[in-house]
């Protein structure tokens, strides 16, 4: 595989010689570290996305059916979280948030709780995701044909029954594109946690690259891993979207 071009030959040689050793799954290869980092990234993304959806449902309902004060506070929450960079929010919520929680606990006389780094990262990203999913879910709920809500009320369904049986299932098809986008954002925002030192994929990549000095190899490998995660997610999301639209009239209105 010689192109006769010296610099390119040098790159190829270096890649061939090292790449499989460096990326080997067990030590002294760093592949295992990268996979562990990927696992942590996925864990954080799932946790953050889940918390985001819960906050989003609550926030959407608050914005649609809540009192004026609640609505204004939620507007403030979504505006600030969507306007301030995630990095600043992560720093604020990580250092300030855990400090405040512990101070409040001390004030009330309880023991300080130790917030695990993983949990803190999930909470921080989840709060940010919550602001975005509030808007997505609110838009989706508003897209539900009014007739369905009226029929549910006419049947005398309680609010929680209507939530469970009508609102949530009906808003799903409208919400899925937006939520799918948020999932992809969540998987990539986990990289920001490298700046606060969490052991997810980007941080592991940085450590591996700086220890072995093979920056190209490891950053490319991490890129491939993230891309695979994105592509697999896209396939799964397409399936979910098809499933959520089952039973709905074809060729919308």
């Amino acid at each position, binding site marked *: 595989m010689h192109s006769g071009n010296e610099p390119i030959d040098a790159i190829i040689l270096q890649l061939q010689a090292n790449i499989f050793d460096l990326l080997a799954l067990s030590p002294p290869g760093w592949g295992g570290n990268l996979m562990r980092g990927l696992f942590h990234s996925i864990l954080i993304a799932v946790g953050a996305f889940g918390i985001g959806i819960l906050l989003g449902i609550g926030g959407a309902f608050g914005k649609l059916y809540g009192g004026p004060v609640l609505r204004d506070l939620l507007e403030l929450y979504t505006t600030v979280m969507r306007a301030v960079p995630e990095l600043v929010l992560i720093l*604020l919520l990580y250092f300030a948030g855990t400090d405040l929680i512990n101070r409040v606990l001390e004030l009330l006389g309880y023991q300080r709780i130790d917030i695990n780094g993983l949990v803190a990262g999930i909470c921080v990203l989840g709060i940010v995701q919550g602001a975005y999913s509030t808007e997505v879910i609110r838009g989706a709920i508003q897209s539900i044909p009014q007739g369905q809500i009226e029929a549910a009320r006419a049947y005398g369904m309680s609010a929680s029954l209507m939530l469970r049986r009508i609102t949530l299932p009906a808003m799903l098809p409208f919400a899925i594109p937006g939520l799918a986008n948020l999932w992809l954002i969540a998987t990539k925002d986990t990289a920001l946690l490298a700046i606060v030192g969490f052991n997810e994929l980007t941080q592991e990549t940085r450590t591996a690259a700086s220890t072995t000095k093979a920056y190209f190899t490891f950053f490319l490998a991490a890129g491939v891993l993230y891309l695979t995660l994105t*592509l697999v997610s896209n396939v799964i999301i397409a399936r979910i979207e098809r499933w959520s639209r089952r039973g709905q009239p074809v060729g919308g209105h």
Partner: protein
Amino acid sequence: MAGRVAASGAIEVAAKTSLWLQPHRIGLVAVGLALVVSAALFMRWDWVPNYAGLAVQGLWRTIWILAVTSVLGFLLAIPIGLVQVTGPAWLSWPAYWFCTVIRGTPLLLQLWFLYYGLGSLFPQYPWIRDSFLWPYLRQAWPYAVVSLTISYAAYEGEVMRGAFAGVARGQLEAARAYGMSRWKLFRRIWLPQATYRALPTLAGETVQQLKSTPLVATITVVDIYAVASRVRQETFIVYEPLLLLAVIYLCITGILVFAFRKLEARIPARLG
């Protein structure tokens, strides 16, 4: 006549304000003001004068990077989006994969890959240091600009693709029927129409771009986030610099949203 117009304008503004200033809002605004005043009085702000000059520089750098990368990225996004709608397969496939790969990997990774990854190649090829590019390859901001531009172009390419595809076929056909050349069609009909469709999304994406600018601090570009970091590192104050930083970003976002709204208002009214 002018007096009555002015008076009705004033009444309109007063009506809107009183609609907005309902009792609960007045209460919330009062609480907010109280928080701001107590923060101003009780928190440590003695460091602000020392870092004001550096902060202005950092702020300028943030705004400058945002403006340059957004404009360049948008210009790049136009062909990337267009080629996926019209173009021959040998153009549209690379464009599609470009968007997929860039959107599928984190910006931070791309930034570090560009800066440290390319940087690790320099020792091996000494002739790079003699080339005319070297002064730019030496500094950090070109890498920041290139990386953010590529990222913005990929996301906007996707948006523009949808926008180009969404322009009514009838308009394009009518333009061809009028005998417009392809370039004129593009310049007068397709591009403006697509841009109008994309404008609301572009506003959101530009705010996203603003939120991506702090990442350049990790490759030694001194933007406003880096200045706040320096304040935190040198004074060990934990909250105040971050709070002020958040307020600054809120202000910039507000200006951006306002500017885009003004732009959207200038879109000629759509006829159906």
